[in-house]
């Protein structure tokens, strides 16, 4: 075991996959010599060569297309989109092409691309360095969508994503790269003292499609992913409610059994995400839970989310779900 922050953990997953599978290649903007603007690929070019880890032209659509083609022809490409906000020029290649290739070709062709991308707010990124566009991928059959939340699951999930023979969009909560975030921008803890900052140096993987129960509880189910897992944890602490906290980890396909079992037990549910509320992935969770747990629900399922506005710069703490807002929602579920 070693102490790793999320950057080191992701780097370790990539490094091990480069070692284990000669068909793994990594590319994207500034990922080669420099090692990525967030340093996730630091040292990998030097260790594995410039043909395996390299800088690409500044064109997300081209990066995705080239990864697609490499994947058809035997490679296992891991591409980086520098910020999730910049994934949209590649949207067509991802949702119309990668996602449908296996199906459209009757299983003759497929492409095991992993798309890594830092997402989410809390770094004063304003409109275009803060978005969390997971919902815009969960509507696309053929994709898998993963959102890690800590160093331990970042490494384990990224390992599985790379090994997966379906295209995977892998979101990394950049606010948590160097430490968990509990909703207070003035407290900046590191992963050093966090149990999930203990990361095996060796290879391991965490299955996709598995949620993680962060904390058991009987009074309310709180579902979150990415940075919001930690904010929700803090909210539960503040709420004094014995809530169960689920880190969804994989959003598509999500872990039905863990979620449904929990809500049937607690009869109450709060879903938390940073993205805008309308048509966020919280909507799908709420609708699905309602369909499957209707007779167990004691109170309306609550969503605590980012607002239906672009992501702001100076006022971002008023945008992101705060422990206070989440705690209030948890409290409301107890009133019913």
């Amino acid at each position: 075991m070693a102490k790793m922050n999320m950057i080191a953990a992701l780097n370790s997953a990539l490094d091990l996959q480069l070692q284990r599978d000669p068909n793994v290649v990594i590319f994207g903007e500034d990922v080669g010599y420099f090692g990525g603007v967030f340093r996730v690929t630091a040292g990998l070019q030097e260790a594995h060569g410039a043909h395996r880890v390299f800088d690409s032209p500044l064109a997300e659509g081209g990066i995705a297309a080239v990864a697609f083609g490499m994947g058809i022809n035997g490679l296992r490409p891991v591409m980086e989109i520098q910020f999730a906000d910049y994934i949209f020029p590649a949207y067509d290649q991802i949702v119309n092409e990668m996602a449908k290739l296996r199906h459209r070709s009757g299983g003759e062709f497929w492409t095991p691309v992993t798309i890594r991308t830092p997402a989410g707010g809390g770094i004063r990124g304003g409109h275009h360095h803060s978005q969390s566009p997971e919902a815009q991928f969960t509507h696309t059959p053929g994709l898998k969508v993963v959102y890690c939340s800590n160093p331990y699951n970042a490494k384990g999930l990224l390992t599985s994503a790379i090994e997966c023979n379906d295209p995977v969009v892998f979101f990394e909560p950049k606010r948590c790269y160097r430490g968990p975030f509990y909703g207070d921008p003035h407290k900046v803890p590191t992963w050093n003292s966090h149990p999930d900052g203990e990361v095996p140096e060796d290879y391991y993987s965490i299955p996709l499609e598995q949620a993680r129960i962060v904390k058991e509880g009987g009074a309310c189910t709180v579902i979150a992913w990415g940075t919001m897992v930690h904010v929700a944890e803090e909210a539960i602490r503040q709420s004094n409610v014995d809530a169960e906290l689920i880190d969804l980890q994989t959003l598509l396909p999500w872990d039905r059994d863990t979620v449904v079992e929990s809500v049937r037990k607690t009869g109450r549910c709060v879903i938390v995400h940073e993205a805008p509320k309308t048509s966020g992935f919280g909507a799908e969770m709420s609708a699905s839970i309602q369909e499957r747990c209707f007779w167990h629900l004691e109170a309306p399922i609550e969503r605590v989310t980012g607002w239906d506005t672009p992501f702001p710069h100076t006022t971002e703490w008023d945008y992101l779900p705060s422990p206070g807002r989440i705690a209030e929602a948890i409290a409301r579920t107890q009133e019913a």
Partner: protein
Amino acid sequence: MPERLTVSEAPYTIGIPPFRPGEKADFGGGFAEQPGDLNRPEVTCTAQDTATHAVGLIRVLDDEHVASGEWDPKLDEETLLKGLEHMMRLRIFDDRMIKMQRTGLLSFYMRSYGEEAIAIAQTMALEEQDWLFPSYRQPGAQFVRGRDMVSMICHCIGNTEDNVRGRQMPVHYTWKEGRFISISSPVGTQFPQAVGVAMASAYRGLDEVCISWLGDGTSAQGDFHYAVNFASTFKPPVILNVVNNQWAISTHANLATGGRTFAERGLAYDIPSFRVDGNDFLALYAVTKWARDRASAGLGPTFIEVYTYRAGAHSSSDDPSAYRPQDEFECWPGGDPIDRLKGHLIGRGLWDEDKHTELTERIDAEVMAAYKEACTFGDLANGPYPPASTIFTEVYEEVPWHVQEQREELGK
């Protein structure tokens, strides 16, 4: 280089096509460019050594169907006859499919009419291990690689033997064995993907070139730029073709680009670039062979503008008489690729009208037989179709729970 026509210079320019319905299509005689005009550089040349090739037009067959010049690939009789046969097969096949479409046995169809030489000559110039990444206008490549015609028709019908399992529209072939990569409807997406395929070949140390095609209209997509720029940057063994058949549905190339040849765009990225007579089997073969040799030598991509004319409708849903003179193709100086190769073979005493009629009949029968056999696996009007369960399979490598639940809900 062709001149561009526009209606007006103010407020902004709107291009116009050479002719509209009701006008007489008059192209003022044959091509100015003749065989022998352009040299055949060494495959080790620089991109700039092809500067004249990007504005000119590489031809081997002249207007009398005589081959000449440095680009003459000097193909043997067998190869030439194979080429002719495949082109005839494609045309007859297309005609049969359109008839099927008209009678409701297919939902939709797209012919390669007038463009038969392209995929056929180019694929014949490649090696078997090379990857084909086509648009919907290059199905003919499959004949070259020996795909079973019954299987092709079954796809177009979308019946129980469709290897695409009725999921895509007709003409969206996929054929792994022939390294013919699944066709997708969004135009142009395959171009940069082909660059990725070629990079993987190079990475794996394989002598496997990847060839891709897109249309004049499609070259306006971002994917075009990605392909050319990534190819220019990483120099993998890829052959990128813009098939300039002058029309994108109803939109003439004059309306959607501001002049210069398409080939010159490749030059600007330091890729050797050729403009080639797309109805000249020999010229196409020769240029593609050149590109393959260069790629195989580790010297990277080649960019080709294939200059041709979309002789038929865009698709079975289209009626071009609404936007161009009905006889435009006949008036266009490029001719018919089949007639031109046929004329060449006859001129060389390797072929005659009787043989041609006989071969036509033989292919006709072959296509009819294939068509009938394919229909035994179902036709669009009457089924049977792939079972509804094919909706749920191969979405992922394994069927996830939510897709499985839905399959059970449908209960088929």
